[in-house]
């Protein structure tokens, strides 16, 4: 395949027949799938979706609106991939079926075009994104919000109201490429902090907490200039061409030495660890992408290797696995180990703690109904276990848990793992 010199052509890269034929339809995945758990329908299971892709590939069925609907309902949480004994690269298959759909969508073409435009021209353009997010950031921390909530205005605003419920309570000042971050007293190592798109704009507080925790471990983290959006949202949407553009931009900006790239958004980290796969047909970048990917570490993965710092926090905490940390990056142990180091922190596991919350990138906007069903499952667990703090490690999940906590009617705070550790370390000083 030619290297995508222009960011604009739409690739028709359908899933590779070899990827599809790996599935032996043993069915071990079906109960790991959130949409199967909710619907009980084979077509809403990983095995079903792969079978549909195969049937389309073999020309047995047309790619109809119904087929597209089954693929669109997939959260791309990759819980199935984690339990698949055959190693079916399901995440990759879904990205490619969506690329295939995008080439000639049987339905919802206009919405798809708008989405693609926004993902390319708002999310991936820092200046535009900053402008777009500014009002939300102002509103999230302002007294107006309390009034809106008291009057129940948000409930009348449909999707905007749903977004309102998801906004973080304390967004903090943005952290962008080039922003100065906390420095350690004695520097024992260096790292690049990946700033991301929405993460940097709406969760600047998480980035600052991340830098402080790393600094206490002797690591000087910098928000290196030139870095771009990771491309995960675009790839999940089937816009692989533009995801490749962004991947190349990040490689150009951050390569040169072997400094660890710390990512505190599970979705970004998973995507960046797979740059090698994304750019495997790009002669100029294939090897560089593989080298880049080996430098990427999730925050928890990296923090667990640092010398322990005293930390204390008397609270009942539940950790909810972000899908792209547990399933895509296989990181389940480290976040819990880090919580275990905090004196006074009581960790409670909930049923389905590693099942998708329904945030799934932009899924809560594209599939509000299924997203709400999954959120309700989390809310029910929160009602049962009454945590003081819900902790996770991905901005989308964090936003969904803000809404879930509200839905559960409990007074829990929602924090990123880095924020919780930072707070506990400050308590212990």
């Amino acid at each position, binding site marked *: 395949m030619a290297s995508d010199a222009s960011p604009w052509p739409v690739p028709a890269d359908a899933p590779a027949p070899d990827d599809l034929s790996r599935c032996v339809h*043993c069915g071990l995945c079906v109960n790991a799938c959130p949409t199967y758990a909710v619907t009980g329908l084979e077509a809403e299971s990983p095995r079903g979706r792969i079978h549909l892709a195969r049937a389309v590939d073999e020309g*047995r069925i047309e790619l109809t609106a*119904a087929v597209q609907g089954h693929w669109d309902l997939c959260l791309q949480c990759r819980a199935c991939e984690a339990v698949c004994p055959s190693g*079916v690269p399901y995440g990759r298959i879904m990205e490619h079926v969506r690329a295939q759909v995008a080439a000639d969508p049987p339905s919802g073409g206009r919405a798809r075009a708008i989405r693609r435009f926004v993902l390319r021209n708002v999310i991936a353009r820092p200046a535009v994104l900053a402008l777009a997010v500014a009002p939300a950031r102002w509103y999230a921390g302002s007294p107006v919000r309390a009034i809106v909530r008291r009057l129940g205005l948000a409930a009348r605003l449909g999707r905007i109201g749903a977004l309102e419920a998801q906004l973080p309570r304390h967004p903090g000042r943005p952290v962008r490429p080039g922003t100065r971050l906390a420095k350690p007293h004695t520097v024992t190592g260096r790292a690049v902090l990946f700033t991301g798109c929405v993460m940097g704009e709406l969760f600047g507080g998480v980035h600052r907490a991340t830098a402080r925790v790393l600094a206490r471990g002797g690591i000087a983290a910098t928000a290196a200039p030139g870095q771009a959006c990771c491309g995960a949202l675009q790839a999940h949407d089937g816009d692989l061409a533009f995801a490749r553009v962004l991947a190349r931009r990040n490689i150009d900006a951050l390569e040169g030495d072997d400094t660890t790239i710390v990512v505190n958004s599970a979705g970004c980290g998973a995507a960046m660890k797979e740059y090698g796969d994304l750019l495997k047909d790009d002669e100029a970048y294939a090897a560089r992408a593989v080298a880049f990917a080996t430098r990427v570490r999730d925050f928890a993965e990296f923090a667990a290797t640092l010398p322990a710092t005293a930390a204390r926090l008397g609270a009942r905490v539940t950790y909810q696995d972000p899908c792209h940390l547990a399933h895509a990056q296989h990181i389940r142990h480290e976040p819990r180990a880090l919580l275990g180091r905090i004196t006074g922190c009581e960790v409670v596991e909930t049923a389905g703690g590693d099942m998708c919350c329904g945030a799934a990138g932009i899924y809560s906007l594209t599939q509000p109904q299924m997203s709400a069903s999954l959120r309700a499952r989390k809310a029910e667990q929160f009602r049962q276990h009454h945590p003081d703090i819900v902790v996770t490690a991905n901005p989308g999940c964090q936003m969904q848990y803000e809404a879930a906590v509200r839905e559960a009617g409990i007074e829990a705070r929602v924090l990123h793992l880095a924020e919780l550790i930072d707070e506990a370390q400050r308590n212990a000083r």
Partner: protein
Amino acid sequence: MTTRRELVARLSALVGPENVVYRAEDLIVYEFDGTIEKKLPHAVVFPLGAEQVAAVIRLCNTLGLPVTPRGAGTGLSGGSVPTRRGVVIGTSRMRRILEIDVENRLAVVEPGLPNIQLSEAAAAHGLFYAPDPSSQKACTIGGNVAENAGGPHCLALGVTTNHVLGVEVVTAAGEITWLGGRVPDAFGYDLRGAFIGSEGTLGIATRIVCRLLPLPATVITLLAIFDTVEQASTTVSAIIAAGMVPAAMEMMDRMTLQAAEAGLQCGYPADAGAVLLLELDGIDEVIATQAARARAECFERGASEVRTASTPAERELLWKGRKGAIGSLGRIAPNYYILDGVVPRSRLVEVMGRVSEISERYGLKCANVFHAGDGNLHPLLLFDERVPGATANVLEAGEEMMRACVDAGGSLTGEHGVGFEKQRFMPWLYSETDIENMSRIRRVFGNEGDFNPCKLLPAGTGCGETAHHAAAVRAAGPDAYV
């Protein structure tokens, strides 16, 4: 004759339109189970409760349409493939645990409940449900009842029929009845026993009373590594001859080990010829002594190493490989054909030799997983169905292997069921009278031939023809005649 549109309307009236699937592209995902058989149904329905199941069955009987029950579609004998099309009744929306009675150590569940979820829920009370098929994360209790499912731990504890006290059943005639109950040893004919393992040919279980057992105090899992399958096999016999009844005794050959290790990173030695996975459970002192003896037996018969897993995490890792072993073969080939033969333990080595001779003759890669303690072997023939003639070649080799098991005094199935694929072999083991008696039992439950047709008993004509998939899909428009 009825059109598909009428059929869908009538089914929708019974169970609600949201519980009926009928579009061609939605039906195509119900054409298969865990095997290589495929056939498209005309419609799939998801009734909620016995009343709705009964109504659907009666409607199909009136219309003369075949009915095929389906759980999670993980079966390994084609049992839930709608061989003569018609209506598939799915249980995936009946998946509640209705009751856990701790004092009487039983649970009442709906048929679509995934097997593992019962043990997970019971664990809070220190109890578990013993049958543990390798697919237990996905397969349903209802499907387990139909197939009388086994699992690695059935060596000491017995199979599904030993752990199900009663079932509420909708018969093939559409009548609701209870077989067995909440207490063991119901008097009268053991219809519960006849129903369990009937492979969905007598009716559909809509509520199941499961026996729960207390979790064992101590569990020790051993992984013994051998150079050859022969060494491992003789060890199995030696351990049983020594008077031990391990909770489980599983064997995997080299190809299986390599695939499982590649797929699941469970710490298996990829260069070994075979491993034995041995589990002992019970009271501390007894188990420690037994484990020492088992280790000695392994070394005496040539084991190069015996590893011991004592923490739950280590155990889980060893079992993860075994339970995912079959699926992990997808790394080697896109399709597998899994056999399920039983032979007397004493003839395991000899039959294994026959199996490898047959697979070589047919030019097939063959991996082996065994419930060695039961003499239950699972040769897995690897192939690619897209290669013309490959499927036929595999089926022929499989038939020879089954013949070898039967010739050695064994049987056709240990736990996967006869289903569609082995019904034609039934006459190898049963006389005409035997088979006629079994088909009379079907009729007692109201099955005149259309309830899960072409399964379990040799059905004569009309079932064996292979599906012309493309034509079937094309004919599946909304107004096609059903």
